[in-house]
């Protein structure tokens, strides 16, 4: 979906989701939100209004696979796992992110 390539915020959310799923088993949406929340020391809050559209879209792009399962408390939920296309996307997003942060850091040093 090339129209999102330059959308940094969008890309950031994708990056975070892919990263979490790459390092864990299948997760449901709520758990993904919680993980992002904890991993960033509560400094990044993922709005549900962005999370589910993102999951939907990434599943559609075949970066994620979604399956219905049960949570620990017995609730029906959709569990997401990363696909190999997702891993490639993750590498790409990571590279871009580093590029961007490096570039911003440079700019800040020399400005």
């Amino acid at each position, binding site marked *: 979906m090339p129209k999102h390539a330059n959308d940094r915020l969008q890309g950031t959310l994708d990056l975070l989701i892919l990263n979490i799923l790459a390092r864990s088993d299948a997760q449901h949406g*709520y758990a993904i939100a919680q993980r992002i929340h904890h991993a960033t020391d509560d400094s990044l809050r993922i709005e549900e*209004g962005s999370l*589910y*559209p993102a999951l*939907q879209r990434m599943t559609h792009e075949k970066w994620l696979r979604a399956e219905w399962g049960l*949570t620990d408390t017995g609730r029906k*939920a959709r569990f997401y796992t990363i696909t190999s296309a997702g891993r490639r996307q993750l590498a790409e997003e990571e590279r871009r992110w580093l590029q961007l942060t490096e570039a911003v850091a440079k700019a800040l040093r020399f400005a």
Partner: protein
Amino acid sequence: MSPLRKLLNVVRRSRMDDDLRQELETHVALIEEEERRQGLTADQARRNARTRFGNPQAYRERALDGVIATWFEHACKDVRFAARVLVRAPGFSTAAVLTIALGIGVNAAIFSVVSGVILRPLPHPRPEQLMYLNAQDTALNGRQSLLFAREYFALREANRSFVAIGGFQPGETNVTGGDRALRVRSAYVDEQTLEALGYQAAHGRLFAPGETYGRSNAPPGEWFPPIVILSHELWQTAFAGQPIVGHMIEVGGRSREVLGIMPPGADVMDNQTEIWLPLGLDRANREARLGHVIGRLRDGVTADAAQAELNALNANRGERHVLQLTPLHDQIVGVARRPIWMLQLAAGFVLLIASANLANLLLARAETRHREFAVRRALGATRVRLLTQSIAEGALLSIIGGALALWVADVGLRTLMRTYPAALPRTSEAGVDLPVLLFTCGIAAVTSLFFGLAQLRHTGAKGLAVVLTAPGAKGGTGAMRHHVRRGLVVAELALAIVLVMGAALLLRTVYNLTRIDGGINPSRLVTFSVNLPNRMFPQPESMRQLYRSFLDALRAVPGVEAATAMTGLPANRSGPPHKTRVANAQVPSPAPFETVDYYQHVMSGYFETMGIPIVRGRGFEPADAASPGMVAIVNERFVDQFWRGLDPIGQRLQPCCNDRTPWFTVVGVAKDVKQGGADRETGTEAYFFVEQDAKLPSGGGPTVPSIMNIVLRTALPPPALAQTIERVVRERERNVPVVRLRTMDAVFTDTIQRPRFLAQLLGVFASLALLLAAVGTYGVFSYIVVERRSEIGIRMALGAPRLGVLAHVMKEGLVLAGIAVAVGLAAAYLLSGLIASLLFGVQPIDVPTASAVAGTMIIVAAVACLLPAWRASRLDPLAALRGD
């Protein structure tokens, strides 16, 4: 996303939506669980969870929008919602629907005419190959003329460009079907005409090659071969669709064999043909002439190539006539094209005014719905969603309005065509058809889009807080919006001025045409026509006697003061000029003869009955019938053209050009009669006396005409006379129908049918435009007054007199009207070229008309502003200042 994918998504929509809803519910439930773990009560946990989560519906929509074509579901919802919104505002909805119906209806009606007359191809196969061959007479400075039969036959043999070239002559004849004599429209054609038009017989056969030739040395009644082809329609009505092919029927007083039946709707050049007769050209008769010539181009031959060939053929032969090709369609539509487009333009103006009114309505409504939109936006509706909803409202109004418009168009069109059947060609083919439907749908679609956008225009970026806290909570009241409104008022009034101006000019045209002295006194004149078939009256003398006996019987009818008969009914005569030798012509023509525009053969009492004064000499007298010297009477124009400065009495003329034809001595000069119609030049005219014609040998010049128009001077209306006349005629000749019984006034009115049609239609448009513009102006000023209530309140509180407030509002209205008058007159000036050729006796830029129109518009605008202004002056300052 590929269209297929989109489609699949629509199908899978409900499952995916369920998934997502379930997922979101789980999410809320999980938040709730967590909150509970932290020790909150179930209620608090649930409330917190909901607050933290927000509006799941909005998330779902945002999640789905990217993936799924939600538009279908939305569309259904939008329409339902729109219907509720519109039902809740019945005043607005009714006004909007009526405005749309009028605006579109007027356009659909006129577009039906454009479509049926101009756009729709002729109902023949490959109609673009059909050409009309205009003959221009080189001896008469290229004047429109008629081809000689020998030229026609030569052309048919020599040309390589045409598959078929055929002649056509329109006419009328009597058909006896059952026990009743009917007058029917006939088309005299040859086999190639039918081939060119692409017709095949529905029953029996059509004319065969050579079958349509006539024998000019035969007695008059046997000139034409005794064969006919019936139209499907005549076959059905007169012969009840019985098998008739091969049978003999009575046509023009002679028994003829029915060769075949045409397919339904078959016609040539909009002639409304009921019966097809052989053209009857005689190859041996070199001087015979042809009415119309139609050709079909060979496949692959262009009109230009064919024209080049015709030019080359003509250069080789040096014939009298040059042939000019015109596409048959253009020839039929002719000069009607311009008025039709003019009407479409006028209808477009009405639509623009209606749109301006609609925009006004919407602006006012957008203000009141400001809050609603802001709240919905704050609750998570996307702008696209609001827009589609708004468009749905527009679509609903447009569909209802459009359907109403089609009805308006259909009824309007029928009424028009019934009132003015002959004002335009091909109108029998006009109707609400597919192109008209598409056209209407197109306008309706644009209207609904326009509606949606206009309604949302001002609801854009402003946040909820701004809207809800704005003074009066009405949303913005910026100067900008006032400018838009004032602009709309000026546009409406200016467009209305252009239309009223056009209507006024056409009305003056009609008035001028009716005021013209046609040369006769048409009041209390009743006329009808009889056609005596040559076959039954081989002797001119027997025809003369029959005419005389008709007239004698009619003169004896109580209430009839006078009766006479003539060949050509004034005011709608046309046809080729007559070659005439004029002795002592002062300006000799290059040809060995002169041309006289009209010949008129009359019975006794003609000039007295018609009220045509004899200005010099005398009229025809009964004694002339017996005297051996042939006499003629000419009109003033004739004297002016040929015998200027001479005493016309005693001069001589000879109808061309045959040694057996006697010379006629002029005994009198009659006042000019506008034989060709009020708007035509008066032509030169020679009168002959039927009583004398009867004495001439066959082939020796004028003969007793077989078609006569009988005229009665009487105060009785035609319906009261119909039975008496029918009886008088039937008692003397059973096979002769009485046709076209009407008053002479009606004859004159008919000749100006097109100007009257245009004036009336444009008058209707102009009235609509005036009404709409007045309503629009009133609406805008009412709104401005309401909006400026507090300002007016302050003024009044500070001591402004009520009259001053009234004057203030009125002034604003009149300034706008003034601008509109300037703009409208300028536009009318620019468009004057379009209407110029349709006018008579008035210039397109006419100061009195323009002043009257400008005055009318100012008065209309003033009246429209008066009520709002008066209301403003009655405001209670206290109530106004206290606000809502």
